[in-house]
């Protein structure tokens, strides 16, 4: 399995207990639908886990822009680890990790 270009995550390093934090993700990907071009090359999924539990799972179809960008919000109760995985139709993937300290 080959690797996609390094994704970018924007997430605070620390938060107060109960604080809502914003998480932004961006990954470089052409998202070629193949409708007009010679070949299809689409990212299909982003899975975000928090302390091993699924937080958000996104499935992408043709109308998702190139270089998919996503923002979502989490309420922090304790120090947590985040794990982001993107996969495309060719079986390539990218991973990123982050840790947010509470207290």
């Amino acid at each position, binding site marked *: 399995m080959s690797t996609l270009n390094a994704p970018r995550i924007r997430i605070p390093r620390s938060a107060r207990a109960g604080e809502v934090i914003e998480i932004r993700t961006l990954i470089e990907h052409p998202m070629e*639908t193949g409708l007009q071009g010679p070949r299809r090359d689409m990212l299909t999924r982003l899975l975000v886990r928090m302390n091993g539990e699924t937080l*958000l799972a996104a499935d992408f179809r*043709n*109308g998702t822009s*190139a270089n998919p960008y996503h923002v979502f*919000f989490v309420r922090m109760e304790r120090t947590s680890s985040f794990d982001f995985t993107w996969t495309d139709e060719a079986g390539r993937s990218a991973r990123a990790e982050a840790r947010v300290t509470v207290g």
Partner: protein
Amino acid sequence: MTTRRSLLALALLPAAAATADDALQAAIRDAVGNAAITDGGITLRAPATAENGGQVPITILAESPMTAADHVTAIHVFATANPTPGIATFRLTPLLARAEVQTRIRLAEAQHVIVLAQMNDGRVRRATAEVRVTTGGCLT
């Protein structure tokens, strides 16, 4: 102007128009089954005019406490006039602080964007927004 053009398109190409609508309805039924869909309880923020149809920023925000007992399980996004109607599906969990997702979508031409929020009790809520596009999104 858009309405007049759509009407003209409908008059000239009834078969093609019906096919696009069928594809949209099929995509919606595929996402939420036969659940009744009601308007309200969800907001879709999108620009009235997008300079670049290839990167149209949208925000979807459903009203929900996001607790284990009462939360949004999925947000589905559709385009009414793209070559294929599907944009994305987001599976949400109560670990999220609110039922809000921001993303960027592709729109081939001026059209409506439809978002649906599925609640854990089976209800489905809908919001739509009309977006004009200056330069059509490259859907290659």
